[in-house]
């Protein structure tokens, strides 16, 4: 897969950026922070209308059959806009699992609805503080799920969940219709992520992978979601870089633009470095989707993008001084999102260890 964007891909990048610039409203996003269970409907309508939900769904199931490169470009635009809902990433994860999974009928049932945006998907892998526990406590038996998953992104609104569970002592990936589950909303510092604890008590579900194959598929799906998230983080980190730059060239102190002070100037240059290194890793990871290097490339992208977003959120606020910490200016939307995205899809320690395991052949 080429690492140079073709014209179609460039068009997706500019168009998604343009439409979000036109429709996103900071005040609306700030309002969402103070309500549990609400998301940004205009954003989601846009995503559906623009066909972003269909991008990476196979054509035979009503999708556009495109891949991580295209989806990544959309995710970058969403990151820059601190998009008001987590559904794209969750939906992509579930769709990938269905498409690669063993249940063709199930795929045929859900993929078109995911592509059309009629159905909302989420991934429920984590338990406790572990993103992909070796021995999940949620069990699957006789077509039924039992147990709970904490703070699932999108969980408050999703229609179906991809669940990491175990069946007869073996790891399993199952898909559950959430109409059969109960949800407890989780109040968070980034409420539009719609976190909910999902409780399964005999919830009907379908098995799509079991045994080692389940873990391999789960890791692949997690890595794909991580690469999509990394693009989102890069888009956001880049937005912060230019917000900081623009402020530094206009804001004056001691009779000169603060950007003339090297403590500001060099920090912004470092922000640029973090963004470009993470962007390059994202492009590489997206380009080798499905190949043997993908897992390692995904870890590189995830690690550098997480560092870039956390750091740029910290530094952009610091560069702004007092005004930077006001509610109205909304830089904290990025600061909050930097943390929520750093935790969703697994913290740095997980990806660091995965990197070393890949490099030493210990990866599972």
């Amino acid at each position, binding site marked *: 897969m080429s690492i140079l964007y073709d014209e179609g891909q460039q068009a997706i990048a500019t168009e998604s950026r343009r439409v979000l610039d036109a429709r996103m409203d900071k005040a609306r996003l700030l309002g969402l*922070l*103070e309500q549990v269970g609400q998301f940004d409907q205009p954003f989601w309508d846009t995503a559906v209308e623009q066909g972003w939900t269909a991008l990476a769904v196979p054509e035979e199931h009503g999708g556009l059959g495109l891949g991580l490169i295209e989806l990544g470009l959309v995710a970058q635009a969403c990151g820059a806009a601190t998009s008001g809902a987590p559904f794209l990433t969750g939906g992509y994860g579930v769709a990938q699992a269905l498409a690669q999974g063993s249940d063709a009928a199930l795929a045929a049932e859900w993929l078109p609805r995911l592509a059309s945006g009629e159905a909302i998907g989420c991934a429920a892998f*984590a338990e*406790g*503080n*572990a*993103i992909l526990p*070796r021995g999940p406590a949620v069990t699957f038996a006789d077509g039924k799920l039992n147990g709970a998953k*904490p*703070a*699932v992104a999108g969980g408050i609104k999703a229609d179906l969940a991809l669940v990491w569970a175990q069946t007869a002592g073996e790891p399993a990936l199952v898909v559950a219709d959430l109409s059969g589950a109960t949800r407890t909303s*989780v*109040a*968070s*510092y*980034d409420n539009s*992520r719609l*976190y909910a604890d999902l409780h399964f008590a005999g919830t009907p579900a379908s098995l799509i992978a079991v045994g080692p194959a389940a873990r391999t598929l789960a890791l692949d799906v997690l890595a794909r979601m991580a690469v999509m998230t990394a693009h989102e983080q890069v888009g956001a980190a880049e937005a912060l870089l230019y917000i900081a730059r623009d402020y530094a060239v206009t*804001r*004056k*102190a*001691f*009779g*000169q633009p603060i950007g*003339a*002070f090297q*403590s*500001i100037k060099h920090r912004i240059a470092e922000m640029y470095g973090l963004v470009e290194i993470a962007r390059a890793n994202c492009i590489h990871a997206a380009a080798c989707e499905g190949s043997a290097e993908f897992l390692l490339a995904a870890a590189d992208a995830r690690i550098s993008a997480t560092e870039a977003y*956390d750091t740029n959120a*910290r530094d952009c*606020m*610091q560069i702004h*001084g*007092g*005004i*930077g*910490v*006001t*509610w*109205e200016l909304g*830089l*904290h939307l990025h*600061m*909050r999102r930097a*943390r*929520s995205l*750093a*935790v*969703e899809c*697994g*913290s*740095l*320690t*997980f990806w*660091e*260890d995965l990197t070393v395991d890949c490099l030493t052949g210990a990866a599972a």
Partner: protein
Amino acid sequence: MSDLDAYREKARAFLISMAPKFGRDARRANTVEQDLALGRQYMAARHDAGFAGINWPVEIGGQGLTHLHKITFDGEEMQFGMPSHFFGISLGMPVPIVMHYCEDKAWVKERVLKALRGEEIWCQMFSEPSGGSDLAALRTKVETDGNGWKMNGQKIWTSWAQYCDYGVIVTRSDPTIEKHKGLTYFWVDMKAQGVEVRPIKLAGGDSHVNEVFFDDVRLEDSQRLGAVGGGFGVALHTLMIERYIATDSGGFGPHLDEFIKLAHEVDINGKPGIEDGRVRQQIARNHAMRAGLDSITKRAFAMMMAGMQPGPEGSLQKLVAVRSRQKLSELAMDLKGNLGLAFDEHAFVKTDWGTSWLNAPTGRIAGGSDEVLLNTIAEKILGLPQDHRPDKGVPFNAIPA
């Protein structure tokens, strides 16, 4: 047992007796207004018990003890989470300045009493939208008006102004001379005609700072503190008053024990967090850093007790502690994984990592940003040159905006 240790015992006894009614747990679900009301009661009780104005002269209504007695009490009080934060600035800077510069001593004495009992609160109005780190760039202007003055302009980042009765302010009385020379200092009645306070909501969701607008506000010349054109000096004096305030090597965030506790509770990829080198490194490096800051404070303390002037290294405390608290809080959130996505808006900054993280940026900016502190250390302690200052020696109204 030294006199100071005895005093600490006495202070602890008092605080322990007050804790059930005023302590952290008692305040847990309070709205700001309820908390303020509780705080006023606490201040009255503190005054009755003889722990108010500890290092102020007896004749003005203080206890006539040393600065060390004051930091000793403050250090102890900080442990209990009493609702005294509304009154910290009021008693820390404005009131002492008024005590020092205001001529009407009877009036001052009355203000001091009410301020100590929490019946009145004072704010300090220095920063302006155009100013930031650059105090002398302020634009709020006063013009002579008969035998007094007329004030117009705007201040920002004024803590608790929405609850204040009085405030102190630096204004520009002469824009035609070099910027730090044309300033004059006053006290202001916050309820006076033309004063409007608008709370500013911060990233964490709280609103303890404000914008304050002045529209033809009348000031008597008797409200002037210091000479006309002497405002910059009085402002610096204000900022100098509290040299060694009670510090916290935890950067006013959670104690390192909280992090160690967390490291014991979590696994990292199937292994105990406390056994992970990444976690151990952060615990050890932060411990060494905090221990160093604590030793600096202890030494400063010992020097003051020995009647010596403490070293300038005390100025490292906030810079180093708050900056590292921010990253440690992020790591703690990483370790909690999905469980750390939940957020309790009533949690306390010294016990909750999410709250500590969310408020850290304000901590790194309020009371001198990291960059300003580094400049101060470099210039005042190490004698490095000032930054380029195109505004130097130029009349204020000739500086390009």
